[in-house]
């Protein structure tokens, strides 16, 4: 094939540039597609030979120099552990707070929802796998420091910021910094988490948050190990810790056909919730939609979700919801006393809010939640 002199020179220049670039960058380094920043991790221990051990989540990863934690965000740089998921959300939206999903927390308001790449779980059905199952260097990030986040809340007059979409544990340092700044600015921070986090960082985070929704993805060790890639016990411990913090807490369970929808398991889960957290913690049963590595399963039948909700109500859970199915009567908030509809919703949208000062207008019963 013949080439012109111009083509030859152009290709030589490209090759030279690529070679020079390759030499200048550390081997295997991927250049971030957007903003890249890092912060030293708070909770880790330095070991011999420049190894470190991370204590943010129950995995307690031990890393040699140059290695990255299971969460894909924390890397050992010559014996110092840095988190690259810092000041760099890859997704930012103004969402209804119901999408978090918090249903007893300022219903009908909007929240500045953000997520950074990475997650310390490996759920086979992850709906945000493109960002949650990737590293911050591979996602297109934006620069949003804590001050910027507060400025955006003020500019848009938003009452809350939500750490959602991915796992806040993987960017704990950033979440803590932002939540602190938001609290100081008189606004509120909430998070959605899988609750696979150590007690100390969770307590630190809870001290700055105003509310959270934690995922109780199943109710046995085997399900968690095989489907989510983590152990089950730390989840329950974290949920109890979150409840003990006094912050507003809601729970969510994605009901996956044949995996975690056995009525007995749902019943055990509800019994545990009522016994250990109390009957007032709202519980959401979400419809599974085939995603990621579980594409061959069908959607959760609505009847299954209804059955789960009925089990929860019969076991004493006062506020049981059905999500990802709309319209459905399970979207609404009912008074546990007189059964009247307090908040009528269609999916993520609030159609009417009948609460008066956090109470049922009919029977005056106080409804738990953050209403103002």
């Amino acid at each position, binding site marked *: 094939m013949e080439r012109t002199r111009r083509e030859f020179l152009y290709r030589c220049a490209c090759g030279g540039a690529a070679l020079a670039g390759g030499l200048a960058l550390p081997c295997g380094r991927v250049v971030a597609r957007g903003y890249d920043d890092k912060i030293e991790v708070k909770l880790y221990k330095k070991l011999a030979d420049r190894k470190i051990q991370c204590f943010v989540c129950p995995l307690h990863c031990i890393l040699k120099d140059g290695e990255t934690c299971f969460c894909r965000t924390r890397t050992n740089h010559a014996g110092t552990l840095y988190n690259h998921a810092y000041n760099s959300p890859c997704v930012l939206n103004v969402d209804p707070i119901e999408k978090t999903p918090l249903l007893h927390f300022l219903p009908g308001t909007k929240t500045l929802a953000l997520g950074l790449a990475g997650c310390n779980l490996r759920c086979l059905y992850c709906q945000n796998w493109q*960002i949650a199952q990737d590293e911050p260097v591979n996602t297109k990030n934006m620069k949003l420091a804590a001050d910027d986040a507060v400025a955006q809340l003020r500019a848009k007059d938003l009452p809350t910021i939500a750490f959602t979409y991915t796992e806040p544990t993987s960017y704990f340092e950033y979440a803590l910094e932002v939540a602190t700044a938001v609290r100081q600015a008189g606004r509120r921070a909430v998070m959605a988490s899988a609750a696979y986090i150590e007690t100390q960082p969770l307590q630190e985070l809870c001290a700055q948050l105003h509310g959270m929704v934690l995922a109780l993805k199943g109710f046995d060790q085997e399900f968690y190990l095989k489907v989510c*890639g983590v152990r089950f016990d730390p989840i329950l411990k974290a949920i109890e810790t979150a409840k003990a913090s006094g912050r507003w807490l809601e729970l969510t369970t994605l009901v996956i056909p044949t995996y975690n929808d056995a009525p007995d398991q749902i019943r055990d889960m509800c019994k545990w919730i009522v016994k250990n957290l109390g009957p007032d913690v709202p519980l959401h049963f979400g419809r599974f939609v085939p995603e990621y590595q579980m594409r061959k399963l069908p959607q959760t039948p609505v009847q299954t979700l209804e059955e789960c909700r009925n089990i929860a109500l019969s076991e004493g859970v006062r506020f049981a919801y059905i999500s990802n199915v*709309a319209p459905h009567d399970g979207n609404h908030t009912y008074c546990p006393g007189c059964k009247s509809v307090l908040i009528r919703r269609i999916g993520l949208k609030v159609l009417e809010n009948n609460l008066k000062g956090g109470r049922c207008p009919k029977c005056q019963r106080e409804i738990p939640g953050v209403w103002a």
Partner: protein
Amino acid sequence: MHVCDWKAAALLVFAATMPCDFGAESASPPNPVRDAVADLRRDINLYNLVNGLQLSRQQTATILELARQADAARSEAEEKAQGALKSARQAFADLRTAVASNQGIPKDVEARANRFDQQLKDLRERAEEQTKALEEKLLATLSDGQKLVLANYKHCLIPTPDLKDPTRVGQASGTDRATAVLRMLRQIPKPVYDRDREQIFARHMELISKHLGKRTPEEEAAFKQKFLAVIDEARALSDVDFEVQKERLADALKPKDKIADAVKAMEAVGASLGKPGKAAQILLAPGAAGVLAERLALLSAPDGRAQTDLNKIQPADSCQDGKCALDGPGNLAPDRKPGKKEGR
């Protein structure tokens, strides 16, 4: 691609307000294939609505019963109309002869034609009243949320994203097309954008005319100004500002849906005349009972909820290489590699 056949929808609204159009004859010859396609289209449209409404088993059973009653009422009305149709045929034939000769219409011919026409109208109105009564019962079974879905439902072959894949809790990506368009336009290099700005608008206008109705030149000029201003603003914003404001910008890109407005206006006219509404047109239409019976059977079938054997699950690839937490921290080897080497 969403195939929302608006013209068909508008025609359907008119056609369906006349449950039994006695005396009307099809303009085209019978064509079984065309009829089969039309039946499939009708069934799909009905399924799309039924799926969107998330009907419970009880609701499906109730609506099925109403659809069967509507079928029975239609058959009965059809039967009753047979005699009137025969008489009307003779009267209309006489009227045709008189009109064709253009020599004036004899009084008795005119009176007979009028009488039988009125008879057919009365029969049709009685059938409509019956359908309307059934529709009221149908609406009473629906929740407020379902009524809202019904009101916003657009006849379609492929369901719209809000019906097919509604936004889920915790979902990072949105399904709004206007936002996606804006995001794409932000990526275009400035020289290319400056060069193709007019073309972009022309293409957008073409799509608007096709799907939302044609604009007058004045409307188009006003929309052009707004459209280009929104795009210029979207392009000028920082990434963070764009993400925070994209919803507002996307809303500004969406012009008035003239076709939907026209359909709603026709529905309102129909309602003011006491004609059956959208619920009857779709859920009580001929053939609806078959679809609803099929759906009821599906809802009544045991869902076979056997527990999955978790030992048969192949963990995620990413989980295998990192060994996840399957071995637990207590079993971690001192030099275990939880993550892949990044070489930062």
